[in-house]
């Protein structure tokens, strides 16, 4: 069974995660400027880079949401 389109409830979950990830990445980029400790700096920068990659993947998933099409069919 292969579905190209992701289900409505999956869309909501991915939306939640994407929102969270956006905030995290933004915060990391803002915070990293005030960190003097090398190690914490690296951790935050790493998190920022992987975070951006993850955000791209999540965007890709959202683009394949069923909800972008036949909305009328889903409600009833």
């Amino acid at each position: 069974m292969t579905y190209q389109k992701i289900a409505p409830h999956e869309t909501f979950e991915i939306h939640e995660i994407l929102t969270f990830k956006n905030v995290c990445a933004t915060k990391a980029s803002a915070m990293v400027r005030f960190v003097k400790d090398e190690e914490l700096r690296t951790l935050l920068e790493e998190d920022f880079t992987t975070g951006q990659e993850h955000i791209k993947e999540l965007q890709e998933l959202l683009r394949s949401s069923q909800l972008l099409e036949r909305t009328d069919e889903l409600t009833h």
Partner: protein
Amino acid sequence: MNYEKKPINAIKKPMSNDYLEIENSDGMPGLVDSTIALNFLLTAKSGIRNCAVALTEIADPEARTEVRKMLNVAIDLHAEISNLMMKKGWFHPYQVSEQFKLDKMSAQAALQIANMQLFPGDTSRLGTFATPNY
């Protein structure tokens, strides 16, 4: 074996206690199995969440490794159960309206079963177990 989930005949008529009649038990296997599968799926969900929560609270490396393994096993189990349920037609994540219809039907059937007098009044079964001290 593949069967649709459909209402049990006996509970089409409200409060019928003739559920032991063979003709009334039509649809019973599908209803029983789908309910158990749903319970199983909900348990698998909690399993994933419980492991994740525990993982964020544990610092000991050995315990972390083990709980992480359990988390992966739990995710695989969840995948298997949901695939099985989709295959059997008990779970329709891609057709929400279908899923809602099914949920309503199950709830209705469950309500009627809950209303039945299924067991004898006294279920203590004293004397049938080797527990003389009770």
